[in-house]
């Protein structure tokens, strides 16, 4: 598809019969296979385009200003247009990028679990206190994800949770949340 767009821009009308004969009539092998068309750069380029369109849409509530006197939406829209251009360029020139299926996601379970405990920390830190939150996070990661024994898990979690609290809160006086029960 990319080749067609580029070629139709660059070639004279007279040349277009050649174009249709060579490119449309005998498309490259990748065109038959939708999975091969889906390269990493094409996916990322399209995502950037969608994100930049979202930014432009969200900027509609802010005053744009003028060319000579930019308002608060001026630079965000300018940057979103730049990102749009980069996204389109990436998607258009992405034929040689590796196919999406070549990406390996073997660690996705761990990644998801780590992100989940981070969200738990966001929600729990000020409600449960630093020590309880860290204890729960570490027990989940070490026991459930890494399948360590209970003795190791509990002793490690207690050591890190209480040790880091003592070092940073008590000695270095970094304020850390204590939760309703004083933990």
């Amino acid at each position, binding site marked *: 598809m990319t080749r067609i767009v580029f070629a139709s821009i660059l070639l004279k009308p007279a040349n277009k019969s050649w174009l249709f004969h060579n490119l449309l009539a005998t498309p490259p092998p990748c065109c038959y296979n939708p999975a091969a068309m889906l390269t990493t750069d094409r996916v990322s380029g399209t995502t950037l385009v969608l994100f930049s369109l979202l930014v432009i849409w969200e900027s509609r509530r802010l005053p744009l200003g003028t*060319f000579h006197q930019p308002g608060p939406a001026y630079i965000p829209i300018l940057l979103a247009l730049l990102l749009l251009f980069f996204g389109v360029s990436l998607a258009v020139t992405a034929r040689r990028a590796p196919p999406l299926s070549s990406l390996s996601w073997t660690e996705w379970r*761990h990644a998801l679990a780590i992100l989940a405990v981070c969200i738990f920390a966001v929600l729990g830190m000020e409600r449960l206190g630093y020590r309880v939150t*860290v204890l729960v996070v570490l027990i989940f990661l070490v026991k459930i994800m890494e399948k360590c024994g209970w003795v190791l898990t509990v002793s490690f979690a207690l050591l890190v949770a209480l040790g880091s609290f003592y070092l940073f809160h008590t000695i270095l006086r970094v304020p850390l949340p204590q939760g309703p029960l004083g933990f």
Partner: protein
Amino acid sequence: MTETLHNLYLGFSVALTPNVLLYAFVGCVIGTLVGVLPGVGPLAGISLLLPATFGLDATSAIVLLAGIYYGAMYGGSTTSILMRIPGEAASVMTCIDGYAMTRNGRGGPALAIAAVGSYVAGTVSVVALMLLAPPLASFALRFGPPEYFSLLLLGLLVLAYMSGASMLKSLAMAALGLLFGMIGIDPMTGFFRFSYGLVELGDGIGVVPAAVGLFGLSEILLTAGQPTVPAVIKPRLRELLPSREEWRDSLWPIGRGTVMGFLIGIIPGSAHIISSFVSYAVERRLSKHPERFGHGAIEGVAGPESANNSATSGAFVPMLALGVPSGPIPAVMIAAMMVHGISPGPLLITQQPELFWGFIASMYVGNVVLLILNLPLVGIFINVLRIPYRLLYPAILIFCILGVYAVNGSVVDVGIMTAMGALGYVLRKFDFETAPIVLGLILAPMLEMSFRQSLSMSSGSYGIFITRPIAAAMLMVGLALLLLHICPLVIKKMDWRQKLGFADAKE
């Protein structure tokens, strides 16, 4: 010159006070530990200790944070050489030949050359920083908003031009970072932009949560669940001495790495990472035996290690002389200085000479401390990595959460770190670099402010960026870099057009 020596004397009288000396030492030890641990970069280390520095005087605080910064550069090389694990992003290049040397039984000399190269580069670059920063600060007094705008734009273009990934991808990431930097209150009009009712976003996305998420958390997400780390090979002290030939081969790479690292460090960007890549490439190109690279060439250790240390000092030049952060770490250090009521910029050196010269002198002292720490105590630091990774990464994650929370005492920051971590994870899977995002985020408020101030100054005329010589010169350099990159692409396209025409003609 006499004045510089006099100022340096003043600096040493500050740096050698027991209090400052202690903080330099503590900073170096923590920095080395941070450098050894994979996933915890100097930024996470600095942000962990940032709140603890609020109670210190300004000089001690900056000396401690700077110690962590360059300590991490030393520490990162140890794990790269002995285990092929880059403890810090800048040490990636050291892994290649450093680990090959370890496998050839020359791990000790590789460590020694890395430490000596780092020491030489660190010391020489501090001399350059000392000589360059004061005149640059005087020169920067002539800078107005158009000059700052051009400088910041140039920094982004240089970063995109020099980064390992494609320039298109780097520019896209810089634009994304700049867009993230738009979140928060518009400084000129007071409008809330993209904050969606979250008061915490009024000040924008913080540098620390974004950088810890994009660098630290994404690293943990990528490495957790991977096969276990290789065994630690611990060299003995007497095995550390390089041979005469190894010394001779390292001499020029150390010199070139020092100069290149410092120059790259001055330009805004993730200098210490880029400098090691550039140095490795240059050494390989200049070598009479490029085939040895990848199989244990000492030049492949000496050059990048010197360059990344030298870049650390180079990065302090724009920070101290212009008040412009050249990356996330100087940005956090500027924030730390501001907490103490010090505004970095061209007037810092004249208004706060004891802070500037004390800082310079402490870097000399810190380099000596690190040389002493790193070689004989390498065995102790490496023991940290004997902790199984299944226990190490949860602990590192806790330190990341703790460090991010501690800066502002806000769980929203931990949320931002999580989101940035997920973003960084996906982007790295898709072969994007995350450094331009962080730099874009840091520079966005300054870039926008200087752009709009410039237009206010010129009553809306864009000619102000061309009529002022310094601004115009910097924009020209930026444009030249862009053209340098685009040219081969255009020529290739023309080639493609010619081929198409040729095929057509044949038909």
